[in-house]
């Protein structure tokens, strides 16, 4: 029987994290499509999705062979490192110490780079554009695959977590198809902050279970961990803002 106290955070973490990654990939694919047409952009994106599907098909069956304790420990530690890294960056962005992610600026930079390539060599330009799209989708997609596996594998929630990721793709593609420009109004740092909180909470939870710690309240402990990481992230951001102003 699926426990909703753990399925809901897993699905929402997969959805929100995928939303952030898909927005980033979409910006670059859109830049490629704007400059070189949809053919190389779609070709690159589909090739990357095929590669990602291959990775999932290869890794999926292997995960079933790993003992659950070792799997929880390995995934828990990776989630901790990944989640705390995101939360740290999101806190520093919220504090104004590092710049916010700007989809419009990334779109402009990618377009400039492709234009430079066009000036340097006229041949194989569609190929270069397809490779740019492929790279963007592959690199962002790898993060999505990791997040889905990480939040889903520990408790047999791979399917719901995958559905969360697919839903995020559908939302971004639908909105992107309608507005046909970079999705710069997505509150990316707030999303990253929230996802960092959830992934860090999952990380502590799985790592502890992998080390043989039976958390009081079982799955409900996740909510407490998330609340504490949220408080630490917000508190850290507030202190960092004060500190950076002192040094300014």
């Amino acid at each position, binding site marked *: 029987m699926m426990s909703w106290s753990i399925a809901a955070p897993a699905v929402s973490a997969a959805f929100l994290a995928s939303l952030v990654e898909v927005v980033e990939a979409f910006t670059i694919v859109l830049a490629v499509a704007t400059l070189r047409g949809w053919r190389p952009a779609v070709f690159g994106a589909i090739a990357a999705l095929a590669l990602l599907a291959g990775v999932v098909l290869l890794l999926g069956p292997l995960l079933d062979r790993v003992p659950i304790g070792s799997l929880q420990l390995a995934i828990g530690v990776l989630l901790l490192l990944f989640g705390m890294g995101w939360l740290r960056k999101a806190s520093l962005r919220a504090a104004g110490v590092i710049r916010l992610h700007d989809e419009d600026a990334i779109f402009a930079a990618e377009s400039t780079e492709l234009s430079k390539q066009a000036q340097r060599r006229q041949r194989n330009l569609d190929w270069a554009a397809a490779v740019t799209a492929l790279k963007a989708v592959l690199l962002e997609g790898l993060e999505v695959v990791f997040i889905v596996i990480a939040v889903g594998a520990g408790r047999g929630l791979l399917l719901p977590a995958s559905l969360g990721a697919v839903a995020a793709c559908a939302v971004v593609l639908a909105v992107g198809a309608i507005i046909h420009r970079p999705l710069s109004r997505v509150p990316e740092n707030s999303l990253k902050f929230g996802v960092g909180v959830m992934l860090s909470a999952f990380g*502590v939870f799985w790592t502890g279970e992998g080390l043989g710690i039976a*958390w009081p309240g079982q799955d409900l402990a996740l909510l407490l961990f998330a609340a504490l990481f949220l408080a630490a992230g917000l508190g850290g951001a507030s202190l960092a803002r004060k500190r950076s102003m002192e040094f300014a």
Partner: protein
Amino acid sequence: MTMLREIAAELIGMFVGETRLTVSTLAIVGAVGSFVNFIGLNPLVGGAALLLGCLGLLVESVLRGARPQGW
């Protein structure tokens, strides 16, 4: 080849965003695992140490990031 290198760098970068935070987190996990499994520390105490240790590391890392280089 360049793309493979970029993919490898991206994968490593996913988990090693900030070296000191990564190493300290691994050290806490290693210490808690050793104390709980080999020295017989109460698992709940180990769990609390893991949670509080990670929270402390996060705040410390954010504050360090707000400091100008060279301090």
